[in-house]
């Protein structure tokens, strides 16, 4: 089957029941999305399909019809997405393992709501677990990213 990931096209030979996450990680080599739970309970595997955040560990690859975007597709070290820039400035990450998923959820939130309230952040980010407890910085980074985006940076 054919999969579009981060603007690139891939032909893969996968069991259609295989979760998108494992197709990305093992077959295509995109290791940005992380395996955390396998039951859509932690958000570490969050990617976008046609701009919508999905838990790739629980979405069969055979059901993916849109373009997939991973953390590797939203920005690079030389050209960071405003959310990544805010994460860097706020020094959010500790172990960093959940952060690709956190960032993808935050990007989707800001695409939907330009200036999110605390309640918006709680709703959008509640499915993303962080065992290092970086939540206070995640919250401040989302607010900073909203400001960066509004300023067109």
């Amino acid at each position, binding site marked *: 089957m054919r999969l579009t990931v981060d603007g690139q096209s891939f032909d893969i030979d996968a069991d259609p029941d*295989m979760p998108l996450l494992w197709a990305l*990680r093992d077959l295509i080599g995109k290791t940005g999305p992380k395996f955390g739970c396998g039951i859509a309970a932690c958000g570490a595997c969050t990617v976008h399909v046609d701009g919508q955040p999905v838990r790739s560990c629980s979405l069969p690859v055979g059901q993916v019809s849109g373009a997939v975007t991973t953390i590797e597709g939203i920005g690079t070290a030389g050209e960071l997405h405003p959310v990544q820039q805010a994460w860097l400035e706020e020094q959010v990450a500790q172990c960093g393992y959940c952060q690709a998923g956190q960032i993808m959820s935050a990007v989707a939130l800001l695409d939907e709501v330009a200036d999110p309230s605390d309640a918006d952040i709680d709703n959008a980010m509640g499915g993303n677990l962080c065992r290092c407890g*970086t939540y206070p910085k995640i919250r401040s980074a989302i607010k900073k990213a909203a400001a960066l985006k509004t300023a067109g940076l």
Partner: protein
Amino acid sequence: MASIGKIARRTFLIGAAAIAGGVAVGYYYYRKPFANPLEADLGKGEATFNPYVKIGADNTITIVAPRAEMGQGVSTTLAAMVAEELDVGLDQVKVEHGPASYAYYNSGIMEEGGPFAFFDESMTAETVRAGMGVIGKLLALQGTGGSSSMRDGFGKMRQAGAAARQMLIAAAAQKLGVQASELETANGSILHKASGKSITYGEVASAAAAMAPPSEVRLKDKADWKLLGKPQKRIDMMAKVTGAPIFGIDVRLPDMLYGTVKMSPRFWSKPVSADLSKAEKMPGVVKIVPIETNYGYGFGIIAQNTWAAFKAAEAIEAKWADPDYPLDSAAIDGVLKQALGEKASATRDDGNVDTAFADAPRERIIEADYAVPYLAHTTMEPMNATAQLKDGVLDIWCGNQAPTILRQLCANQLGIEQDKITVHTTFLGGGFGRRIEMDYALYAAQMAKETGGRPIKVTWTREEDTRHDAYRPAAVGKFQARLGDDGLPVALDMKLASASIMAGVLRRLFPSISPIGPDKTIVDGAFDQPYTIPNYRVSGIAAPVSIPAGFWRSVGASINGFFHEGFMDEIAVAGKIDPVELRKTLMADHPAAVKVVEKVAEMAKWGEALPAGKAKGMAFTLAFGSWVGEIVQVADTPAGIRIEKMWIAADVGTALDPGIIEAQLISAAIYGLSAAMGQEITFADGMVEQSNFHDYDAMRIFQCPVFEVAILENFHRMGGVGEIGTPPAAPALANAIFALTGKRIRTLPLSKTVAFA
């Protein structure tokens, strides 16, 4: 005064074993420096000065920070120690973990291993502390734990940077034909001001590295620090916001196979029957192999991709032997309570507790029973390792907290020499003590024997990870206090029982050492608190339960912080004394403790009245050499109790990076709150009942309080950072809930009694 011999006889598992094995080796061996492991693997034009510094001819400066980076920021601050003395910016250096090597021994991890409180500076305590440091070097344990990396690295990392700088200056002086004293350094260059001549470190690196290291190294005064003492940008942040492949689970190698494991759901049990036929026939499955290690029995599934391996693991049908521990949580609790009734030797025994209670009027005595459950670590990155065994040589990639132990155990497992093993330590997607265990590495090494030389990445499911941990053990405590007429305690008796962590660690990691002596982790956080009470006894008993018990962020203090500080709050209430005032009074002998309590009370506006439906609770612990006070504010809401705010004051002696320290304090507090609110590992039929985040969750962003943190530097010795925020979190929350609801909850998790929003 107790002699060292006496201390050694009654001293504590690892320490006693190390003394027994170590003293015979003698002082000479202790003085002998370890070889520099970087010499074996230098790039073209690269020179090394010591195990921590490499400089290339192109002025690429590499610092080795040989401790596990599991989020605590250790690589940044260790690199900053070297960079500070080397006179380079952190943005100018490359930081690597480096190889497994005895040169990277951690002596700090052992230093507080003796039966002394951190504030005990008697000659005996100091002598044992120095001795423990020697043992740390003799054992040559390259480990990350015990909140020890800064204390261990503070001397040697700065000296490594300073020595390299002095050698570079000497080489530059020779090259330029000037006096060394006329040269200055900045940003990786050496400047001769008088002539305006300047050369880079790289230009003189190979000449400098060939010189003898200076016999005397002068370190900067604290006042001259440019990096240390100030918040630095973490060296790992860019990789972590761009999704770079930095974790063990991200390793990709040519021709790599994938796998997983299905280990016995009953610890240490062998399979009595197994039907692999269905699993073996599943698409993508290459082979299923038996696994037998220090961690017990099971099967390894080798496959073309991780998903195929997971599916096949589910399809294995096996029956497992009965375990040698009680089958369910009720039976385990029975064993713990029975242990409490046994005679125990006291680790702290001030005054005469028996006499103090003998004539106490009933109304002046308070009593309480406390209990905490087993806990899993649940790092975000499930356990995994990648291994390749080719031509008798093993390469292994994984996050781990002890590379030299990993190498030793893999050598034992495969029957090969340690010098045939290369350990590639990656970043860890969380550690919290879980990755000082080696099961994930041993399984991958074992499976690599079966792949015909191809590398294999072995990833556990979350279910396997949750059900095969080295758990924070369940514990129980029985406490009694006698109050005086002024409400202050005149006697306190604490009896504690749990499975021995150290006995379990020895069985898994040091199988050749037999457990001897009591286990200090059972009483840590209770016997060593800076309270002065005339009659004060703390005793611990190891309960015979062989479920794997391990190091869980803050270890014994995670248990006893809750017990001690919960009961202290009960004493305050019974004695009608404000909890903050009670602590200030009882800790008056320790000004650092009093200042912490005063600071956190001031930040939280402790004395001010709160609106109805809100309340505060406080707790204080001294653990890993740092003094920490925490206050939690809770609110009663229609959806349940909401944790609104948390204030933390911590005295760490010397704060090397206030930004990272603040992040660690908040992190550790959330880790403790998560467990206190809802976490519990329970057993039925010899197996763990929980399996994934739906039944073993942690705090979410919508439950997270607002934090305010103060970092103090009053005490004259440096303390640890990574674990110190955890022990006071649970009791501060439970005490706040008592203040809010009048319910005194003595058993965790709190969610068994109250609901959280």
